[in-house]
């Protein structure tokens, strides 16, 4: 056994995050660690690498007891880790981030050229086009994720831990990552893989361990394990319907009844001017590869990068969208892709985070009463099944998926008329995933219009009434009705001249 964990226990104030958990990792296996949001997966990893101090439990590596006190010490033992929240330094260059702590030196000084070469080599297996001299912070979450992975892979002599590494990657990048993982497995490394994408788990893993409420409920070989049984292990009950695929009617709104119109909005270098009309209660999907202009479209619509051309208007005339505040005032909401930097306010409580957008819209002089805040918080904790010991817990102390739910709750509490969701289900478990899709149907039935950006095409197919395809910073196609199917979308994304009907929706 390469790595063993015996009766690991970890408590936080108000929560027992891990309760006497056992875990074994063999050399040359990919071992998936599964469980609902807040089950304790990330905590297990952090206790293992010394990022958290465990309360009880023994760890052994190659038979010898270990007790790393810090991530650095774990690295020296040969345990490389990619944490769920990328924890690199955004204002250092990519090369510096990759070689940090082990920069090549010449005459006692950092050798810039050697460092760049080394960095480029480290990234070479991932098929990304990155200038290693640029600051890491200027790249998308996906690229940052890949940089973090590349760094961990190089550092891991014996064990590689990947905590939701694929959450922000598209299928091409996932395939590349899996190639790297397979070759490491062949070299005899043990790999721990955490993910909420069960397809990926089935594709790459040899064994799975399932955690529920901090307890280990099962460890099994993946071969012969049924998907539904796995989900049952995770949730503790059966899932009613995993996705609503195929049941959604895909009825685009009647063009004459669309109330919100964007005409020729765009921004040079970000996204070419596009038109968009939205009907009440309509769900529009935005599909495309990473960097194709999906997020940029959302940023223009929400005034984060104000449009240089065109106008937005509704029944009552023109709407100003020069900054997010004006967008919020116009009744727009935006749940961003990168919840850590753009979404949560980590030190504020769950309650305060949920009330924040509504409060901003009301203005500082009209505070939301404490009773009302409590009511909102309790409502959404219950509605979105946010796992927290109470509403006063700091959001930063919640598990990744639960933080995501808080960001969604913040906007739902404001009840926007047009809600832009950028990767809304990132890091969210299967149970909550289905719940959120159901929630989308519910709020749209009440008249809210939604724009969903997602790399998960199944998800788009499950909720969208029509899908707009973005490629090379242009809206190139619109799919409606029966065309809203995974393979049609894939074809429209890939084909230079997609055989789709409407040009530039």
């Amino acid at each position: 056994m390469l790595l063993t964990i015996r009766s690991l226990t970890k408590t936080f104030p108000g929560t027992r995050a891990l309760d006497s958990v056992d875990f074994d990792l063999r050399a040359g296996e990919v071992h998936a660690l599964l469980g609902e949001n807040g089950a304790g997966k990330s905590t297990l990893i952090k206790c293992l690498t010394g990022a958290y101090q465990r309360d009880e439990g023994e760890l052994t590596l190659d038979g010898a007891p270990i007790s790393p006190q810090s991530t650095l010490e774990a690295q020296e033992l040969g345990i490389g880790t990619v944490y769920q929240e990328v924890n690199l330094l955004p204002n250092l260059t990519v090369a510096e981030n990759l070689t940090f702590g082990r920069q090549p030196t010449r005459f006692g000084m950092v050798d810039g050229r050697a460092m760049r070469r080394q960095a480029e080599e480290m990234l070479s297996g991932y098929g990304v086009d990155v200038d290693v001299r640029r600051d890491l912070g200027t790249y998308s979450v996906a690229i940052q994720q890949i940089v973090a992975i590349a760094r961990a892979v190089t550092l891991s002599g014996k064990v590689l831990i990947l905590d939701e590494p694929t959450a922000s990657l598209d299928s091409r990048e996932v395939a590349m990552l899996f190639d790297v993982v397979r070759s490491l497995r062949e070299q005899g490394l043990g790999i721990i893989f955490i993910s909420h994408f069960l397809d990926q788990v089935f594709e790459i893993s040899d064994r799975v361990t399932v955690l529920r409420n901090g307890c280990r409920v099962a460890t099994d070989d993946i071969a012969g394990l049924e998907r539904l049984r796995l989900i049952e292990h995770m949730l503790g009950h059966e899932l009613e319907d995993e996705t609503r695929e195929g049941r959604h009617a895909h009825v685009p709104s009647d063009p004459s009844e669309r109330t919100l119109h964007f005409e020729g909005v765009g921004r040079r270098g970000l996204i070419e001017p596009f038109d968009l009309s939205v009907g009440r209660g309509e769900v529009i999907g935005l599909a495309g590869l990473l960097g194709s202009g999906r997020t940029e479209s959302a940023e223009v619509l929400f005034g984060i990068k104000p449009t240089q051309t065109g106008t937005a208007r509704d029944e009552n005339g023109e709407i100003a969208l020069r900054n997010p505040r004006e967008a919020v005032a116009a009744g727009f909401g935006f749940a961003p892709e990168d919840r850590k930097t753009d979404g949560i306010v980590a030190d504020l409580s769950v309650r305060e985070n949920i009330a924040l957008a509504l409060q901003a819209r009301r203005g500082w002089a009209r505070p939301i009463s404490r009773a009302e805040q409590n009511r909102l918080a309790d409502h959404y904790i219950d509605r979105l099944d946010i796992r927290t010991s109470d509403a006063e817990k700091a959001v930063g102390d919640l598990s990744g998926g639960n933080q995501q739910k808080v960001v969604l709750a913040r906007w739902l509490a404001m009840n926007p008329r047009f809600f832009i969701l950028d990767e809304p289900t990132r890091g969210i478990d299967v149970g909550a995933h289905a719940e959120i899709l159901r929630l989308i149907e519910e709020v749209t039935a009440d008249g809210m219009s939604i724009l969903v950006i997602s790399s998960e095409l199944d998800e788009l197919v499950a909720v969208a009434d029509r899908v707009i395809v973005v490629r090379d910073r242009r809206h190139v196609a619109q799919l409606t009705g029966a065309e809203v199917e995974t393979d049609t979308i894939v074809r429209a994304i890939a084909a230079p001249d997609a055989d789709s009907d409407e040009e530039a929706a």
Partner: protein
Amino acid sequence: MPRVIQRVLPQLLTLAALMALVSVFFPDFLEITYSDGRLVGPVIDILKRGAPVALLAIGMTLVIATRGIDLSVGATMAICGACSAWAISAGYGLAGALGFAMLAGLAAGLWNGALVAVFGIQPIVATLILMTAGRGVAQLITEGRILTFNHEGLAFFGSGDILGVPMPTLIWVLLGVLVALLVRRTALGLLIEAIGINRRASTLAGINSRVLLIAVYMASGFCAAWAGIVATADIRGADANNSGLWLELDAILAVVIGGNSLLGGRFSIAASLLGAMIIQTIDTGILLAGFPSEFNLVIKAALVLVILVLQSPNLAPRFARIARRRRGTPAAGKLTTREAGE
């Protein structure tokens, strides 16, 4: 209320310990007498002498909560003091003196706030500009000399008292209470904390962080104006070179001793005010204890170090853990989570 008490408990304990310590060296320390219609005693003296730092600490708390810092408050104090002395000498009367001083403070804050919020300059650099230039401006106003005045009304703000309580004390207590009420009874406190913790996310949530930032620096300038008024009124003259000299550092220290993080976010004005009183107690205590004056700064530095180490987030949970171990309940530390958050 209990939550407020809980928040300021470390500062209250520190203050009590310091007062006990000073009493050892100077047994009459806690004595307060009532003579000539005014309260007198070392404690009253601390409450009065600490006024400028306490006033500056109010505004500084808000600025630091937004993850900024205002190095210019000492210089702003000098400018505003000079304005009030000039206005009084030029015959604008008391209202004119106070009005000009407050306007100058707000203008200084607007300048700082614009540099930070509109031009995106790092707060420490942005306010450094006024910190260095401000004394020059004050000297221009006083024309390079100590501008003295004879006006009982203005002098009252420095040396007068109401019901035996010194005016400077009343001013900082009143302003502290007003600002605390303003930020806590409205949503301002929450919004300030939010932009201090994550400005980007707050802006995306629709908060007008630019205006809020400017407002916070203006609040700091306003507080500095009152500190300047009190200092000028006290000596019946505006000294552009020395008024408020280095007080920005004491104000920052007061905020830090008050347990507010320089990284922004959660803040407590009450705790900062206690921090200001802690600093003044150290200053006054050293004098009363009768140490040779060359020891003053060393002793002050040592005491501040001890206080900060005792309050440090790396140490507090360790104490808590030891205490818990003694009581036999399982350990869980904020410390470890903080580390992991890096």
